[in-house]
């Protein structure tokens, strides 16, 4: 199966991403922070699944978004990563891109903005 992973410490954000993507036929994996994200993704890959896209927050406990992207890119160079960020963190967009993020989305976003960003990165 193809999955989209949402890595965010806020359950609200995870629920909103999941509920938005589900009706469009995307399967969603969830994780609370970068480290759990890597865990969940690697487990899914080991079980033969495919990660189509990772969506991650920047400000997270344990392992933050930039750390996650760095680690993720060590074993996967090409899968797109969408960074969730806020207006107050604009500078992190640049950092994220250097680490290998593909795109970004400013919180709070509307469902169709999320869908648009996702579809801009995967088909």
């Amino acid at each position, binding site marked *: 199966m193809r999955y989209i992973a949402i890595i965010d410490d806020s359950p609200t954000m995870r629920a909103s991403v999941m509920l938005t993507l589900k*009706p469009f036929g995307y399967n969603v994996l969830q994780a609370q922070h970068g480290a759990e994200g890597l865990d969940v993704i690697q487990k899914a890959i080991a079980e033969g699944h495919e990660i189509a896209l990772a969506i991650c927050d920047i400000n997270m406990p344990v392992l933050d978004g930039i750390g996650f992207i760095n680690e993720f890119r060590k074993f996967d160079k090409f899968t797109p990563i969408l960074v969730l960020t806020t207006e107050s963190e604009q500078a992190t967009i640049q950092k994220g891109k250097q680490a290998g993020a593909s795109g970004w989305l400013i919180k709070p*976003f509307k469902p169709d903005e999320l869908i648009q960003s996702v579809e801009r990165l995967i088909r």
Partner: protein
Amino acid sequence: MIDNAVRDVFLEESKELLDTLDSDIVRLETSPDQDVMNRVFRSVHTLKGGSGIAGYDQVYEFTHGLENLLDLVRKGETQINAAMITLLLRSLDWIRQAVAAADGEECDIAVKEALQRDINACIGEVSAVKAGGTHDEKPRIIVPGKTDAHGNRYYHIRCAFNEDIFLRGIDPLMIMEDLRRLGTFIQRKINKKDVPNFDSLDPEKCYFSWEVVLKTEHTIEKVYEVFLFVHDDNDIVIRDITENYDPDSADARIAEKRIGEILLGKGVITENELNDVLNEQDQKNAKLGDLVVSKGYATEKDVEHALVDQEKIKKKIETGTVRVDTAKLDNLLNLLGEIVIGQSAISRLADDMSEEQSFMLKNALYGMERTTREFQEQLMSIRMIPIGPSFEQFRRFVRDVSHSLNKEIYLEIEGQDTELDKTVIERISDPLKHMIRNAIDHGIESPETRAGAGKPKSGKITLRAYHQEGNVFIEVSDDGGGIDRKEVRAKAEALGLVKHGEEIADAKLLQFLFLPGFSTTSQVGELSGRGVGMDVVKNNIESLRGSVEIETREKIGTTFRVKLPLTLAIIEGMLIRVGKSIFILPMLSIVESIRPRKEDVQTVEKKGELIRVRGEYAPLVRLYEIFGIESEHHNPWESLVVIVESAGVRLGIMIDELVGQQQIVIKSLDTAITNSRSVSGAAILGNGQVALILDVHGLLSEIMS
């Protein structure tokens, strides 16, 4: 619906966050600790994000200010003090109230504004010291560019992507595709000069650059949006060239060409004549239609007709499409279901009226029912997609599998335009794959055997789809050696499914192949033939309320024929009554209904009650026992028994009355309501009563265990 679910999650989350914040902020007062400070900041940050998403705009705006203040504290630009702690705690209280005030309308704006003033004052103090550290957002003035007479704009776009773009998970081709969706490329150039020699080529790098002219109705903003993720660190140049482009003549030319093609297609002019006219048109710059007439190739009437056709074609092209969330379609269908229920309720009322009134009302209802049925069909057709693409994916599969078995097999596809429900297509893919694999492995013989039997060396598998009698049929056929009935029989006897010398119908014998653990191949193939699989295939098909049968002819081949309903949302159901309760049985699974004789009912040890129907015994089920309800009859020979069948196994269900046949819009039940396998869903009847839909397959497996 989504909003509510997200709100619920946010309510939970905010409660936790606020509690942690409370204790953390109190802790800050006694011992200023950077870790705690960071956590406070993060919590408020998360609170802000969540409230924004969950639609608590007041809270969002408020936490934004709070976050700014905390950011300054976190960066050490201001010291936290007792007054600030109090302010923070009071802010938390306000947030708590605002979140609790359900729809956010009743939250206390006056308190909020007072708090905001205080927060701003705190920030202001710091900012005053720092003097203008905040960044202003530049105002953006959007001036939409000019368009041509048809509302089109023309952009020259040069995209030279960074070599390392793939490593950011971005596929430039996808961007080009997005671009093309905005309009049409009327010029296109791919620059390949940077592609190095093969030995120094790095497949992880992008060496191409593109140059296109895009014709589109959209503004340049929209075009920039396509490059949103890439335009600041890649070399993307977009120029509006609408002015120096001369679109009218080019457009006219395209149209003229089409006129020529239409005339050609109608056989009015020949290809030579068309070329001749087109050449001349290049020199003279006249209208093609006029030229054709002046040359005597066609009459004016012909050209007029062609022009009308051209308009039609244009209109066809302009027919737009809309992408719709499937949940919305489901919703519509559900609503329509409610209308049908309403109609039957009215129809019931009509029964109580005087004859004349009843007749008139029912007549009116008939017309309405016809419309609703048509509405339903139209609605269903939206969910339908052609099966072609799903079939196509098997080409590669057949090739790979047959090669691995040293067989030559080609796949033929028929009826790819056949449409069926999207969900059905998704769920039928796996069973089909298994049947195809089976056909490759067991169905088609090795090239040597085939040559010996006088058949062409390469085998053929045909995937076929067609509509018949309101169902969809999908067939997987091979031109192999067919299934050896003797072997099947021998195996069935060995398993005790059939007695030696006992007569058995061909179709029934072949159905054994779908039993778990039943496999006839003496050699266990690597791919199939371990006896795992065909039973799963059958189960999968039955869960789609379909059925599968086998047709096989020795030396000629085998066909697996899958019969599927057009949709999963509606079934043809039989209403049955037990006591005061109504249940629904899918018509598909009903074989017959009988009134048994007393001597036909027997109780067998460990097998429970059995009923003899046409010489065979089937288990008997008393629904009133399973569901714990009242029943009018307690002896099978006094009541009716409906015989149902699933996976070749029969079952007798004891009922009080057959109420009637009806189209049922299925409402799925939450597992919280029932996790019984005997029930597959529910429906609302005309009188508002809820009826459970019985799942025969589940009922059987529950009884068997």
